[in-house]
């Protein structure tokens, strides 16, 4: 209620706000939305602020038959299940909502209702229209590795497993979908006795090997081994996609022993009684406590040893007699102290035994600078480091000896000086030393992927694989090159290798060596051929000369011929110096030994004429 209304009731004159009032009222009412379903009075109660009531709009259900469609048709449809092994012999039916397409036309609908009465033969009549069960797709079969005999021979041989047993295992794995407990349960491999023994005496069973008892781990190990190997056979490891490779690696790394232990542990854990469990817990706690205590104890002991440690005094103390020397000693001790503190923080891993602790601290005694330096330089560079120090002169003690601590003052003074000089060498060694250590080791897989190989001797720098083969050629003379090219062409080897990979070039080099030998041999053969020709020509010349000399020399000549034709049978009997004789003899040998080659025949032929013709024939053959 506004104050104006009060005034109105009390009949008080509206002294100053007579004008603006009605206008104000109009203003407030005008924009107010007229809410439906709410009385005006109730709305006015809100005054200037509109009531924040969201009117509830109530929807009622539409009238049920407002959009009446014909009821969905359901029909009893027969179906088969392709997952069954009976090849669709069993036909069952189920109710299915009738769809527009594929459904029989509506006039058949009427007899569709009578279909339940019909027998499944009707469904069978429809034949290929029978739908497959929607559950058939859940009948998945595991894919077990497949192999043939060759692959088994080359990859899967095992001393533990015969091929028959492996086959049997894979069969079971297939049958029971790799459910190992079931496979193990059903595993009953009876090795078949050798067949010939079976036939000979069926009663003798002494040699039949007893079936080995297989644990589940054995079975798994064998299966994974086979699967991994076959996977690698089908696709080399570096070509596998990541998930494939992970699977491959997992199968390869299957450790039956570990698996067996794991199960044993699990069994034990589950079999223990409540008391045992409690005891175990308390034991674990105890161990933890003991460990913590030893650690603390060790820490204390180390600290103690450090405190017990004192600088040796067996070297001369002349250097400390001057005040400057004393000052240096003081400084040195202070810095040593500091470094000790730092060290106790730094090195909890230091040796706890006294033997380990003493030299350590002795080195640190010899001067903080040295220590820092030896930290800066990697351990592998210590040899280098000491070289550098040795070169610096004998005035300063070699800090690696533990007894030099007494000379620490001098060392400290010198160390300050040398710092500058040494810094270059240390930085150099520091940058050089870590590199070989840091070079990561590549796994075999990575080596394959990145094409990394290791060789004894290598000329550094980039080259091409084919260059090796080019070199093979270029190391030969021009004529030899020609011969090699011809020989290779004869062998149907292309002039340039299609894919000069490492394996191919290696193979080519073997071939190259063989062809080189062949070419050399041929050269030798050609040379011999030439010499034979020469000798034969000589002989022909001799014979002609002899023929001119007369027939009294004939016996002599024949002897010669016999010597030459050592293996020609019946040669010496024909004692005639006539030229035709050797010819005829040659014909005879040819006739009696048809298997002998042209070369053999020509060897026996005495006349130049026939031998040359033979030779030409041979050349043609070649």
């Amino acid at each position, binding site marked *: 209620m506004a104050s104006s209304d009060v005034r109105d009731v009390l009949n008080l004159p509206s002294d100053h706000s007579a004008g603006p009032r009605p206008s104000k009222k109009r203003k407030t009412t005008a924009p107010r939305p007229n809410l439906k379903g709410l009385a005006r009075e109730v709305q006015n109660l809100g005054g200037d602020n509109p009531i924040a009531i969201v009117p509830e709009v109530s929807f009622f259900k539409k009238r049920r038959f407002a959009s009446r469609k014909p009821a969905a048709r359901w029909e009893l449809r027969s179906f088969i299940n392709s997952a069954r092994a009976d090849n669709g012999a069993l036909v069952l039916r189920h109710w299915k909502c009738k769809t527009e397409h594929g459904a029989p036309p509506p006039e058949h609908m009427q007899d569709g209702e009578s279909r339940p009465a019909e027998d499944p033969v009707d469904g069978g009549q429809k034949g290929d229209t029978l739908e497959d069960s929607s559950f058939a797709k859940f009948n998945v079969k595991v894919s077990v590795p497949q192999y043939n005999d060759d692959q088994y021979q080359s990859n899967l041989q095992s001393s533990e497993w015969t091929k028959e047993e492996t086959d049997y295992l894979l069969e079971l794995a297939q049958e029971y979908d790799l459910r190992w407990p079931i496979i193990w349960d059903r595993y009953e491999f009876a090795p078949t006795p050798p067949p010939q023994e079976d036939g000979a005496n069926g009663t003798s069973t002494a040699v039949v090997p007893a079936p080995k008892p297989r644990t589940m781990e054995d079975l798994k190990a064998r299966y994974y081994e086979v699967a991994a190997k076959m996977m690698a056979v089908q696709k080399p490891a570096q070509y596998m996609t990541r998930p494939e490779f992970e699977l491959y690696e997992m199968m390869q790394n299957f450790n039956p022993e570990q698996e067996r232990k794991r199960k044993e542990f699990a069994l034990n854990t589950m079999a223990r009684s409540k008391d045992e469990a409690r005891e175990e817990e308390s034991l674990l706690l105890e161990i933890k406590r003991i460990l913590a205590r030893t650690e603390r104890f060790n820490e204390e002991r180390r600290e103690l040893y450090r405190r017990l440690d004192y600088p040796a005094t067996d070297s001369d103390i002349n250097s400390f007699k001057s005040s400057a020397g004393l000052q240096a000693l003081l400084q040195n001790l202070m810095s040593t102290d500091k470094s000790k503190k730092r060290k106790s923080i730094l090195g909890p891993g230091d040796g706890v035994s006294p033997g380990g602790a003493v030299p350590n601290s002795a080195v640190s005694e010899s001067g903080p600078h040295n220590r820092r330096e030896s930290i800066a330089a990697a351990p592998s560079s210590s040899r280098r480091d000491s070289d550098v120090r040795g070169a610096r002169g004998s005035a300063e003690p070699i800090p690696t000896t533990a007894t030099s601590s007494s000379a620490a003052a001098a060392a400290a003074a010198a160390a300050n000086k040398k710092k500058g000089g040494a810094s270059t060498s240390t930085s150099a060694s520091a940058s050089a030393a870590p590199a070989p250590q840091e070079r990561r080791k590549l796994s075999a897989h990575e080596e394959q992927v990145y094409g990394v190989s290791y060789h004894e001797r290598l000329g*550094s720098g980039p080259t091409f694989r084919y260059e090796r083969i080019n070199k093979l050629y270029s190391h030969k003379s021009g004529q030899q090159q020609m011969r090699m090219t011809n020989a290779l062409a004869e062998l149907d080897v292309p002039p340039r290798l299609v894919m*000069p990979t490492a394996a191919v070039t290696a193979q080519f080099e073997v071939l190259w060596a063989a062809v080189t030998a062949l070419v050399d041999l041929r050269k030798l053969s050609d040379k011999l051929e030439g010499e034979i020709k020469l000798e034969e020509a000589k002989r022909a010349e001799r014979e002609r000369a002899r023929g001119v000399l007369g027939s009294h020399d004939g016996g002599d000549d024949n002897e010669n011929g016999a010597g030459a034709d050592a293996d020609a049978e019946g040669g010496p009997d024909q004692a005639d110096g006539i030229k035709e004789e050797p010819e005829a003899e040659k014909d005879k040998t040819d006739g009696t030994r048809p298997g002998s080659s042209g070369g053999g025949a020509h060897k026996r032929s005495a006349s130049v004429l026939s031998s040359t013709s033979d030779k030409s024939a041979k050349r043609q053959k070649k």
Partner: protein
Amino acid sequence: MAPPTGKRVKGVQIFRPFVYGTTAKPFDEKTNPKPPGVPEDHTHSWTVFVKGIDDVDITYWLRRVQFKLHESIPNHVRMIEGEKGKPFLLHETGWGEFEIAIKLYYVPESAEKPQTLYHHLRLHPYGRTDEEKEAMRLNGGQVISWAYEEQLFNEPYEPFYEVLTSGALSSSSSSLSHNRTGSKSGGGGKGKDKDHGKQPVRSEGGVLEKSAMIPLTNRPGLPFSRETEQVEIKKLQEALVKVEELMNKTKDEVARKEKRLKELKAEAAKA
């Protein structure tokens, strides 16, 4: 050329397969019309290229390629700069075959001198037998002369070794290469590793980026693969068997001839 950084990695050889060669096509009204501005006597258009096997990126080891063409071609020395993921290509037209000198410039990390390959430009069908020529003629007139080659890096410098042995397998490269940033090469190497940190994608039997792998099987347009390699090895082995046969035959022949010669000589000595 950048000064050598670090040391050479002793006893290590790393290879990278690649393909180079030419593809030529005669001008034809329908299929390959002559573009304007080409001289009258030019009969073919051709392309010379250097690319990774399976079209993988090779610019991480090959920076640029110089093609030296025949002197009669204007501006006959052409330098092609590497563009990431693209092959080194050069298109030209002409009428004659000649030898192209292909000079490979390696990335600065390698600190290696450029190397030269020679390739004969083929415009006309070639082959040892007529069938081979015929097969080439049927190939839409396209004359393909491609060669497979492997680039060997013997004892690469450490930074380059790092480049060559990382990036293909995402798991191994990232953590280790970051440790190396302390050394001088770290800056460059790290940046590269970053954009290769993502999982490499590849097809079935294909090759990884930045690896030395060769595809498992042939595909159209990619004639070089393990398959081809096996075929070639088999061929060489067969040839070897043949050589051995010939060898034995020749040996027999030589033995026979030696015997014959001895006989003849003995005869000559007697006479």
